[in-house]
């Protein structure tokens, strides 16, 4: 019995060697200079509020800077990447206050894990700016539902439903940026910002804005929205990027829209410069 106890005692002592080889740690040391997967996006950088001076106006009249933030995932190479799409518009009242036109100014796509960032060619920017989103206002405030925004698609042929299975030869797909390629063209960049490839795509996006709240000073309105989106890969000049982005917008109303009153002569260029200050991180 003593021998058994001795044997077991020895066994227990042996178990405490604490040897360990950690392959994950080894790789972390080996690739210490590899780009990390975490990123500090522009929304996380504190920016001072922008002093726009005395911006007059009451109610919803006048010009507003608009920020719409939608989150979701994409998986162009199979791995799911989180993305945050922040779009900026300038809003002007039309029809005596019954509607507003949102003119596209800029879009920032933050996909921290994507190896290649994307950029919008000027032709695409011009195209999007040339077709403002017509927002119909309800009597009790800004609450448009079913606000559909398309890139490279013929709205008249689409109908109201979310499109599915579109290809480069579908009737609803048009060469909207007039570059002899289907849909619109998005540029994929190298890590240093150079041109890597061009993707041809069509996109359908829908915003369902919930009622917002007007700040006491009448300068800001904020609310949440539900969103949906689908993107169709129509081709590329490099097979590496010729793949479906597999967008999946986060379900629910976790997305945000924000309006900031701006002077009537405020421009998109100013908005792009002031964006972080106009819409500071919550």
């Amino acid at each position, binding site marked *: 019995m003593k021998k058994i106890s001795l044997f077991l005692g020895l066994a227990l002592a042996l178990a405490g060697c604490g040897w*360990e080889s950690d392959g994950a740690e080894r790789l972390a040391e080996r*690739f210490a200079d590899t780009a990390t997967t975490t990123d500090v996006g522009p929304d996380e950088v504190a920016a001072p509020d922008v002093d726009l001076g005395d911006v007059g106006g009451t109610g919803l009249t006048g010009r507003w800077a608009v920020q719409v933030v939608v989150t979701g995932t994409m998986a162009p190479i199979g791995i799911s990447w989180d993305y945050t799409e922040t779009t900026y518009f300038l809003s002007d009242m039309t029809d005596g206050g019954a509607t507003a036109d949102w003119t596209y100014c800029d879009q920032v796509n933050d996909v921290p894990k994507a190896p290649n960032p994307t950029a919008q060619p000027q032709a695409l920017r011009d195209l999007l700016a040339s077709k403002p989103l017509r927002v119909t206002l309800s009597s009790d405030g800004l609450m448009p539902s079913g606000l559909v925004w398309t890139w490279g698609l013929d709205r008249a042929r689409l109908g109201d439903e979310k499109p599915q299975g579109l290809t480069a030869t579908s009737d609803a797909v048009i060469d909207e940026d007039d570059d002899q390629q289907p849909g619109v063209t998005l540029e994929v960049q190298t890590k240093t910002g150079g041109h890597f490839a061009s993707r041809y795509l069509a996109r359908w996006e829908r915003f369902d804005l919930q009622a917002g709240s007007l700040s006491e000073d009448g300068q800001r309105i904020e609310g949440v929205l539900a969103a949906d989106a689908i993107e169709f890969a129509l081709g590329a000049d490099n097979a590496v990027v010729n793949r479906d982005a597999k967008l999946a917008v986060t379900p629910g109303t976790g997305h945000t829209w924000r309006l900031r009153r701006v002077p009537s002569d405020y421009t998109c260029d100013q908005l792009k410069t002031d964006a972080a200050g106009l819409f500071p991180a919550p």
Partner: protein
Amino acid sequence: MIRTATGLFFVALVCAATPARAADKDWLTFSGYLQSDLRYVIEDTRGATPGDGFRFEMNRNDLDLRLEILPNPRLQAVVDARFRFYGFNEAGRLTDLFRRAKVDPFDVLLDEAYVTVRGLGWKKLDLSVGRMVKTWGTADQFNPTDNLSARDFSDPLDYTRKVPNQMVELTAYPARCVTLSATWVPVFKPSQLPPSAALGFAVERTPQGCFKSAPIPPLAISDVQELGTLFTAIPACDLNFLDPAVHALTPPVNFANSQVGVKAAFQAWEIDFSLSYYYGRFGFPVAYTAVADVTSTPSGKFDVAYTAEVLYPRMQVLGADFTWPLDFTEWFDLDDDVSFGFFGEAALIFPEKVVFGLRAIQDGALVVEKSHVNVQPDPFMKATVGLDTTLPWGTYLNAQYVRGFFDEFADLYGLHNYAVVALEQKWLDDELQIRVATAADLNDYSLNVYPQLTWVPVPGVELQGGTFLFLGDTAPADPYDYASKSRFGQKAAGRSVAFVRVKGSW
């Protein structure tokens, strides 16, 4: 130059032996064998690419020379060396044709070279120093307590071989029925693997050369599935998946990485048993890291460079074994040539914790990072129990239950259970023998079968023919589950072959 010197050494060895035999000196024993092996792959489904098979796999000649020298009762020296000629031309360039070693490649293997001094300071103490092969345990080949000498599995049909190593051993005989030994192996040497082992890391391709599948890493199934989507999203023919480069991490050559074994063997009544302890490393590699480096090319395709690292985990082993020959002859009035023996062996292994890490990088950016504990630091048991019996009509049976194959560790693949059976039948005063051996994996139901016919036309000469077959699924049951690989079915296990062999011993 080295080979020339070794060749001269062999000549000297033979010359030294020849007069010794002539003079019949009892202080010198010369033995050895000549063996020719010819093997043919009898399938074309287990190779690196579909259709690879129905070809010669081996055309080998071995010359083994063993010399034992006993110049006085207290000194023994042993030298055992082999010339191995592979029989396949390796001259791929014109300049290679100038060299015999390329046209007719060979190796020189020094299996043993050691000196034993008996009665060193005490008449019951022996010291052995040199290049040795040690075998512990009482089971038949499947000895979980046997870790001092690494295995040599370079020839799948000869799984008894070991990799020799330099060691120092003290053996004491304090009583007639007690043997104590302590062995120190300064430098760790790993086991030698069969050529088919590389297929365990191979990339599978379609007959058109397009990517089909990559080796399964030891990760959680959900992680492997996620990793799989990285490649399945890309057209298979756009993936230029290079053959993985696998690096085995050799431990630093220092005292901490030496191996030490101590053993106490006892005999009581008819039972032999022993207790043992081993400090060192597991002789077979365990997956440690992997990196898939994906690079986009201007042609629109992806180059994928997959590099992996394996290591030899540290471990301590507490072992126990016994063998118990039972004499039933009087009980059942059997002939004297009937015998039964039971044996058992168990090893309690205390392993090093090994965490497997994997990264996928695309165009320099980290896109996937995964890790999983491949070897838990918890003690685990490998064991073998069995019996062997010789029956009066020339039949021999050996049957074993094995928990944990040679190369199995408590990693994510885990320990399997095996039934290992060998049945021999001899006729004509042992001149003719049929032997069928099989090892069956009781977890995944794969097996290998090794039937052979041996004819001994004159004493010392064996003519053999037979097959060595692997039966089981070559593809894993679950393409995302590291543990679902079939033990004997997976391609890394080896090729099914037919063979003829001639061996002359003296």
